[in-house]
């Protein structure tokens, strides 16, 4: 642990966390550059830089500003939002399996989206709105059902399981009763993807993150206190019930905007905080490292589906599961050989 003190602020940080975070940021930039220069219309780094400084030709302008950049930014922000959401929930519930599923958001959002796709064949925007609305309602229902002189973490988890199972049953019903074409559209949405995402999505996610990210970081300082238990946290001057509600709202908000923009991309919310924690060796919730890992995971995954399987238009959710999963497997095996780890 090191400390920086200036008259205005003092910051505590661990050197390893700083090193790992810098490395992740550097890798993200490298993946972003690779995404910019490769593809069906290869560009040189010089051309990309020229385009960014306003001196590119119309062709490079189109490729960068219309095709590649908005998708890249959407992916980066969606990954960061999902990872933050997962990190907050894992810390609140003290459970490494926690992700926006446990508060019912993921299955609720899926119900909204599938209903719009299957019942009214709605547009992409209608699907996103349906997903967000039903997801938020489901989360609110889980919280209210779990509320009984305050919300106890364990009860919240169990009620989340029950409500999610009901929404999942609705989803199965809709998918088995739909025409094959609608069911396939729903399945594609369920995997989560960035195909055809443009500035509209990027702007919405950026605007919401601009509000929620600072909230998450400020509230995140109390997460470590909440992890010690409600009574210890209360003793240290934290209003446990109110802080937990605020953190839940921020976490669901982050998951909601990410899901609206790209669908429920699997595994990022669960894996990114775990990967970050294992790399930084931190004991508590590392929100910044988690967010960086989420963004990196999504940018690399999207690069993989776009460039390795360019003809199939596979959604990015497939690559996040495969890459994130294999990386977590490798990390666990590596720790296992070293005979350390938790």
């Amino acid at each position, binding site marked *: 642990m090191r400390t920086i003190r200036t008259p205005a602020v003092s910051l505590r940080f661990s050197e390893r966390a700083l090193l790992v975070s810098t490395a992740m940021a550097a890798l993200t930039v490298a993946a972003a550059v690779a995404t910019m220069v490769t593809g069906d219309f290869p560009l040189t780094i010089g051309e990309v830089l020229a385009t960014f400084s306003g001196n590119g030709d119309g062709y490079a302008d189109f490729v960068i500003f219309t095709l590649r950049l908005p998708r890249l930014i959407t992916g980066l922000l969606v990954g960061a939002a999902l990872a933050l959401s997962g990190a907050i929930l894992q810390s609140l519930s003290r*459970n*490494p*399996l*926690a992700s926006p599923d*446990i508060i019912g958001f993921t299955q609720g959002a899926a119900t909204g989206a599938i209903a719009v796709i299957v019942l009214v064949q709605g547009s992409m925007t209608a699907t996103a709105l349906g997903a967000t609305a039903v997801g938020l309602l489901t989360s609110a229902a889980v919280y209210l*059902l*779990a509320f*009984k002189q305050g919300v*106890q973490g*364990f*009860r919240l*988890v*169990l*009620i989340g*399981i*029950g*409500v999610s*199972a*009901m929404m*999942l*049953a609705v989803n*199965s*019903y809709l*998918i*088995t009763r739909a025409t*094959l074409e609608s*069911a*396939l559209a729903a*399945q*594609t949405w369920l*995997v989560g993807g960035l195909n055809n995402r443009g500035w509209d999505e990027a702007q919405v996610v950026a605007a919401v993150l601009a509000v929620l990210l600072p909230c998450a970081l400020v509230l995140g300082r109390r997460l470590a206190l909440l992890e010690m238990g409600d009574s210890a946290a209360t003793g240290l001057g934290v209003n446990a019930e109110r802080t937990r509600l605020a953190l839940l709202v921020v976490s669901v908000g982050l998951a909601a905007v990410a899901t609206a923009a790209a669908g429920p991309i*699997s*595994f990022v919310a*669960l*894996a990114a905080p*775990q990967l970050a924690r294992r790399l930084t060796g931190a004991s508590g919730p590392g929100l910044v490292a988690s967010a960086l890992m989420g963004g990196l995971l999504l940018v690399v995954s999207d690069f993989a589906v776009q460039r390795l399987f360019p003809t*199939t238009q*596979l*959604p990015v*959710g*497939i*690559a*996040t*599961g*495969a890459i*994130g*999963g*294999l990386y*977590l*497997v490798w990390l*666990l*095996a590596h*720790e*296992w050989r070293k*005979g*350390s*780890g*938790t």
Partner: protein
Amino acid sequence: MSREAVRGGALLVSIGVLGLVVLLSLWIGTKSIPFTDTFSLLLADDGTGDAAIVRDVRVPRAALGLLVGAALGLSGAVMQALTRNPLADPGLLGVNMGAAAAIVSAIAFFGITSPTGYVWFALAGAAGTATVVYVLGAAGRGTATPDRLVLSGAALTAVLLAYVSAILLLFTHTFDSFRFWNVGSLAGRDFQLIGQISPFVLPGILIAFLLARNLNVLALGDHTGKALGANVNRTRAFGVLSVTLMAGAATAAAGPISFVGLTVPHVARMIGGSDQRWVLAFSAVLSPILLLGSDIVGRVIIAPQEMEVGIITAFIGAPVFIALCRRRKLATL
């Protein structure tokens, strides 16, 4: 009355309810057959169509419901005891996703589309995945903790889910068969399937009950467990074996019905306390009640069509589960 007597009484009542549900599942169906006739046909085959329905359709279906229900509930209870995680369902060992990946491959590359055809693929997929998860998560020297087990399960599940999703999106006809397996159903299963899964489910159930005492010790934590003389690693290995046998075979026969294994053990703990012997006994009886009861409702609710049991279980089970969670004092793991 002593605590033991209350628990014992509750268990006896549950067994009585289960018997009633089995009788109802033989009697109720799309074809209406009088109650008394159902049982005379059961005893003597008179060669009519009704006899064929009772003996060849409803009996195997009820038997399968009993087996699959008990297997799902027990495997959930063992899994939660092993990992000390309330979010752990048998699927977390990768059993469901391993089975799904194998079945998707069977449909896409071998053109197989019947439950009896799926069964060997599903069993192989489940066993293979569970082994990898176990080796990765629990077999290190002194490094095995419940969190490692659930994380390696989650990681492998994600990789397999990616594979399954990719195949489903690339091969449309595979998706069309898979979506019906994926719901979870007891319809259209026969005696042959019961013969296929019993050699796996029954030993799994036996191992689970033999492990009950050791699971109690494990619940105190790895260190305390060791100090009390329990062989923690052996308990965990046999626990994983038992879950794989039961959940793998159940999923192979009826599709992934994760709700039963996830929630019934919590209800069993609310009634039976935290002693694993009671938790296992209640899980084994309550799960088939939920599964067979839901199957009966599914047969009548949109008759003459059927609603899959996987959908009904969640719809009947979840509100009851939520109400119990609100009312009872929760026993944490």
